[in-house]
């Protein structure tokens, strides 16, 4: 079985179409990217996070109320 796999692997490599070359990146590009990562958007505070959650909860209020009315009608 192992021999078959090895033969198949060999065949695969031989049949291999022209492969795209692996992308190359320069040290300068990596350095610039590191700087961008350091300058990236700040994470925000916990209070901002909670405010966002509350806003989402509030925006779904109408849907919740209508679903609740619908459920009570079905009973």
């Amino acid at each position, binding site marked *: 079985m192992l021999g078959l796999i090895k033969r198949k692997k060999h065949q*695969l490599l031989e049949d291999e179409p022209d492969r795209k070359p692996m992308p190359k990146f320069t040290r300068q590009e990596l350095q610039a990217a590191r700087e961008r990562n350091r300058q990236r958007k700040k994470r925000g505070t916990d209070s901002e*996070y909670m405010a966002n959650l509350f806003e989402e909860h509030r925006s779904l209020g109408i849907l919740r109320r209508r679903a609740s009315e619908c459920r009570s009608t079905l009973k």
Partner: protein
Amino acid sequence: MSQHPEVTPPYKPMQLYDIRAFEVGQVYYIDDELISIPEADRTIHPRKTHHGRRVVIAHNNYLNTDPTWPLIHVAPLSHRVDLMRETDIEVTTDRKDGNAVTVNSIIMLSLVQPVLKVDLRECVGKLSRDKIVEMLSLQEEMLVGTLEPLEEE
């Protein structure tokens, strides 16, 4: 061997080999349950798994295109940009970030993990070159220990 994973698991040994040429920064769909997210999987409230999850090819090496190498390292994406940490990279729907996402997302580099190439479904896009270099740069920082925490505003 597979050009596209019409084959389904459990695989026969020869079905593990995939002749597709994967490239760093490409984004693929994969079954969500094949991706491990320990902080969500190992709690009393099980994680809600989705039909599919976007993952990005995280490493840049020749094994990505070697049809005799069945594994590939991917980083999962999440739309929870509000939970971004220092090990995440934000990707927006802006064309300057590529065409990899339909909603603003984060690439979770702390969850880079090996998967089978044959488990990757269709390629749905690719990160821009700048975003790929940012991802590689952050992984390098994580590897060599120069990662800095995100500052609070």
